[in-house]
């Protein structure tokens, strides 16, 4: 009984910690993205509120909360109200399986630094990213607007087709670690990170996760200059904010996934593991912001053709080759 209570409290503390850290990180990623994009375009970005614009996220939140929460006429009301939460929720839930440090020993107890070390953590992540499609599709469908519907349709096709390439690109990683558990995968990278072992898988992973998370250059579901704002055209106030925050939490999730699967998780010399982990996550986030500042958006059919005709065969080939090499090395 006592043991269970302590475990429960520990889980709650870890949940609270992750919740706070991830949400504030997401808020400041928005600021960082705006500032970095600004500097890439030779302007300053937000720097008016507080020293260097550091209070800008707070102001944005106040603005979003005080705005009108508008529901369009003839929309599917309950689904419309429910969809943004789904996006933010699936993004937040992904953190349950992400290990951010080796197990810590405190007062004689070994505390795993992950909320829940599932044996099928990788599959859990994929399940959640599939569920994230629903936020987009339901939001776009319920809005009763052609632009929303177009955006949702694009999002659906794009996210489903790129999830295949995403899953296939991670099979070599699973082969190396011989486990679906994220902790095991990180443990397997203690000598060298997977990016050196599976460079092709890394490239495929990065491209497909960009499409999967609807970030530029693959932001067709919300392409501003084609379909207004895509699936969240009709949303305003904090519901739009939830979509927005969900997107940036997703960016951290991607960073954490890339770190865990390819960059060696918390492994690194000199600095404490948590610092290495957060540093790598932020570096990957910077890579995505950088890509947003650099790449134009391809056409929609080009995106799908690239996914089905290039990435998936390439990922399959990668799986076969990796398997053959491992087999040859073992025998």
């Amino acid at each position, binding site marked *: 009984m006592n043991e269970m209570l302590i475990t429960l409290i520990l889980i709650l503390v870890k949940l609270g910690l992750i919740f706070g850290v991830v949400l504030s990180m997401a808020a400041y990623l928005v600021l960082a993205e705006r500032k970095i994009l*600004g500097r*890439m*375009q030779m*302007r*300053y970005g937000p720097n008016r509120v507080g020293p260097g614009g550091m209070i800008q996220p707070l102001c944005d939140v106040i603005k979003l909360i005080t705005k009108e929460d508008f529901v369009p006429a003839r929309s599917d009301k309950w689904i419309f109200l429910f969809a943004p939460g789904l996006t933010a929720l699936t993004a937040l839930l992904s953190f349950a399986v992400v290990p951010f440090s080796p197990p810590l020993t405190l007062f004689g107890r070994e505390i795993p630094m992950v909320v829940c070390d599932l044996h099928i953590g990788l599959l859990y992540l994929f399940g959640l990213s599939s569920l994230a499609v629903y936020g987009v599709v339901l939001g776009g469908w319920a809005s009763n607007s052609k632009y929303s519907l177009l955006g949702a349709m694009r999002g659906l096709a794009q996210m489903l087709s790129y999830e295949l390439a995403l899953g296939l690109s991670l099979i070599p990683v699973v082969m190396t670690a011989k486990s679906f558990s994220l902790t095991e995968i990180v443990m397997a990278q203690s000598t060298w990170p997977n990016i050196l072992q599976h460079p092709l898988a890394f490239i495929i992973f990065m491209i497909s996760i960009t499409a999967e998370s609807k970030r530029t250059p693959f932001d067709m579901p919300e392409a501003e200059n084609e379909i207004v704002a895509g699936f969240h055209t009709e949303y305003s106030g904090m519901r739009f904010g939830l979509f927005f925050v969900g997107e940036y939490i997703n960016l951290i999730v991607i960073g954490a996934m890339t770190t865990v699967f390819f960059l060696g998780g918390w492994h690194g010399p000199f600095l404490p593991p948590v610092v290495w982990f957060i540093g790598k996550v932020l570096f990957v986030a910077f890579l995505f912001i*950088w890509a947003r*500042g*650099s790449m134009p958006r391809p056409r929609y059919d080009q995106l799908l053709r690239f996914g089905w005709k290039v990435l998936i065969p390439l990922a399959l080939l990668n799986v076969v080759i990796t398997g053959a090499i491992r087999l040859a090395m073992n025998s």
Partner: protein
Amino acid sequence: MNFWRDIKGTLQPFWITLGYLFKKPVTIQYPEEKRTPPPRYRARIVLTRNPDGSERCVACQLCSAACPVDCISMQAAEAEDGRRYAAWFRINFARCIFCGLCAEACPTMAIQTTPDYEICNRDVLKLVQEKEDLLIDGCGKDDEYNYYEHSGVGVANERGGNEDEYGPVDPKALLP
């Protein structure tokens, strides 16, 4: 070889944006840094004075007529010596579009545009400016010009007595 071209085209933008990331932004941060507009910039409208310090405006209504948004209004008056002036002169800066047509129309160079662009005000009535707000102490762009010294009207000197003038023609004389 399209493949290598595409790879290059994918990687090159990253290099360029990274370069720009470390360059100094070109933004002028307005309330702290202010740029000086060029001398002929069209912003605040002023009424200038002659080199001798008298008002230039003769209330001919040309600026008011040229104004496309009708933001200039005035009342003409005449002094004892025949010199015309504006009894009152009003510019509504809330309507002004800073086109500068009034300055172009002015025959006496009284009304002129200046580079002072910080006019905005929360109270719209403060943007309606009277003659005392508009008059400045200097000559503005031309510090030699005095309309009545070229006009043919006997105000500055006797009629026909100005430097570039000849005396009045006698309409009853037979000779041209």
